[in-house]
């Protein structure tokens, strides 16, 4: 190969390298340990207080202007619904950003758990989105810009709580749909989301996340028999802004009991670190191999004649065997 090819090749690899270095610093910022915006808001859900009235579902439906449900919000038969051969309870979808499910632990009254986006401090959906549609606001909400959503649904794969849903019913403009903490209409003005405001039981407490943690620990301390000693979401998956107090082990109300305390992005960091290394090392490595191989070709006949088998001798042997 001529010198021109190498020069062109170098130019190409410099361009490719530049493209990734530009991407690099941003990446580093995104994956650094982020302990959350200082005064961001959250909600503490007290499962011992929820009576399963579903008024939060109704309020959400109205606030987010979602389509009318198949069954009215005062129809409690939805709690008996199961899906996929009885293995699954209701989940969030394009027409319901929050749902309440009933769990019947043995020897206890039923427990109701509200499901919605938990607004992670380091959201998996955000870190998996290749068009950067998601934003973690300083108020604590995880919001998204549907106008750039391509519909790869990687965020649905990534979300450890299976929260984002997709508007499959739309043929020409399907996008991701999920709870946005009523950011546009309420949170950004400092107001609590619609579901919290309507809750008749004060099962949902809105406040600064750091204050909610204090309140939660206080409740556990004051009523040790009433709660298990855990605020689900305090540390799980890097911390969430919606957190749960539960009277029974969390797996009995449908949570993954051991999701780990690392945010999802930590699982991907190893690979992201490999990328610039491959981009930097491979060009020289393989061009080097090429140069070495070329040199060796020149000595082809000589090696065969003298029967030398050093280094690449094995390869030549194979060749000989096959012919």
């Amino acid at each position: 190969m001529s010198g021109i090819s190498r020069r062109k090749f170098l130019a190409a690899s410099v361009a490719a390298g530049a493209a990734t270095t530009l991407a690099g610093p941003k990446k580093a910022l995104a994956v650094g340990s982020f302990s959350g915006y200082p005064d961001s808001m959250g909600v503490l859900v007290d499962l011992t207080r929820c009576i399963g009235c579903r008024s939060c579902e109704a309020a959400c439906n109205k606030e987010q202007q979602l389509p009318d449900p198949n069954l009215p919000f005062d129809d409690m038969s939805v709690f008996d619904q199961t899906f996929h051969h009885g293995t699954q309870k209701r989940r969030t979808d394009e027409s319901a950003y929050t749902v309440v499910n009933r769990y019947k632990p043995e020897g206890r009254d039923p427990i109701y758990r509200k499901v919605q986006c938990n607004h992670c401090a380091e959201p998996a959906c955000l870190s998996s989105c290749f068009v950067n549609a998601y934003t973690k606001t300083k108020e604590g909400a995880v919001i998204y810009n549907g106008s750039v959503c391509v519909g790869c649904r990687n965020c649905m794969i990534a979300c450890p709580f299976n929260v984002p849903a997709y508007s499959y019913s739309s043929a020409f403009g399907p996008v991701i749909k999920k709870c946005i903490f009523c950011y546009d209409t309420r949170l950004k003005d400092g107001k609590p989301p619609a579901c919290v405001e309507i809750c008749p039981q004060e099962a949902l407490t809105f406040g600064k996340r750091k204050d909610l943690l204090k309140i939660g620990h206080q409740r556990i301390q004051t009523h040790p028999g009433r709660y298990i000693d855990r605020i689900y979401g305090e540390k799980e998956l890097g911390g969430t802004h919606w957190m749960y107090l539960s009277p029974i082990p969390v797996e009995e109300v449908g949570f993954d009991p051991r999701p780990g305390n690392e945010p999802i992005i930590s699982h991907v960091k190893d690979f992201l670190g490999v990328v610039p290394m491959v981009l930097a090392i491979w060009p020289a490595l393989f061009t080097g191999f090429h140069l070495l191989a070329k040199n060796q070709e020149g000595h082809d006949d000589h090696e065969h004649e003298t029967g030398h088998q050093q280094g690449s001798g094995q390869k030549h042997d194979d060749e000989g065997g096959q012919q």
Partner: protein
Amino acid sequence: MKSLVELGVKPVDSLINEKNDKRWSIMDKLLLGLSPGQYLGQALRNPFNWILGIIFAIGLPLIVYRFIFGLGAVTHASNDYPWGLFLGFGLFCMVPLSASGFMLGTTVEIFGRHDFHPIERLALLNGLLGYFFAVIYLMIDLGQPWRLPYPMFWSFGPAAVLFLVAWHVATYLSVQIAEVSVAFFEWMDWLGGKRFIRRITIGLTVSGIILSTLHQGALGALFNYAPGKVHPLWYSASFQWIHFFVSAIPAGLCMVIVVSTIIKKTMAWRCDDGFLDSLDRCTLGLAKGASMGLITYLVIKFIGVAHDNEWAYLATGWGAWFLFEMAVGVLLPLVLFAYAIRHQLASLARWGAVFTVFGIVLNRLNTALITFNWKLYQEIPHIFEFIIAVTVFAIYITTYRFILYRLPILYSWKEQPQEALAPEAVKAAPINTTPSAANAVYRKID
């Protein structure tokens, strides 16, 4: 076509029609030098075309249906299984099976093993088409495929693994088009283009290796976003990307063996002697490469199990399924390859390749679909999803065959009378010097 060749019809393989010393027209080239009647006749006589016809008759309207009524009309519209067959098969299986392009490119161009030259173009084409159709599958799966350029030009999410996949697949697709275009330039007689590509071959090949390493790995790293959803035996926090990358190596090599076997059985008329005579030797060579990949893959898979201390899972039902995948998809081909290479049995190596391809496809389907959400429930994709996936695959086969029939992939193009002599010189040379003679010819063409 076979019967026509037996009758003495010679498919176009050169610039000049030997019968009347005129250049073939584009029409002649497209029809392989047959008359339209002859061409249609041979197409209708081929029973495989009828099978394709039936698949298209059912599948193409379904694809139109999907774009009019949305994804929800042809899938279960699952929020728990956002990725179905289109990505589970179309993207995650097609891409590793297309690793052949960069593997053979590296072997021939970087390591200078010109004895693999006869099969290099097939490997490059296999790579290009596999990637191209992976993108087609992706376009069918994306909610708004017309927004696919967004991550490239409009809204960047550079910290996302998928961003990397998008960029690398797009760049690598262009690299592969450039690599395969040599055959097209020959066929069109645009020698300037050919010379230009020849000059940048090393650059293209090395960028091919870089991009392939990264996006083959990135496809694995995509599952690092779902540590709680993929079954631990198919998930490795530290090694997921390297499992995917390493397994892509035997996958790509074995796909070339499988495809070349099908070609040998059904398309021998289109191959020249240079291809047919070296095929067994190349097959065993590829099998050696694939064995290296497979044994490494087997070891690092179990290192993955050991690293995360997942031995206990092996005793479960999922564990049995994992061991089945390893036994049939990795261990069995390894044994077959070892025996085949020891005894120079190309046909046995071909069976090894079939099992390897099966094993890799099973692995990707296991990771993306079958063991995904193992804590929730298992889902069988919608029947329409199956039909569309099969239809796109049928379009892939049709395109593949269309190109193989025409472009000089399996045969060498005879440009000018004096150059046409060169391949014959190779043939005439004593057989044990073939590789170096081929090298010499190759360099001369360079």
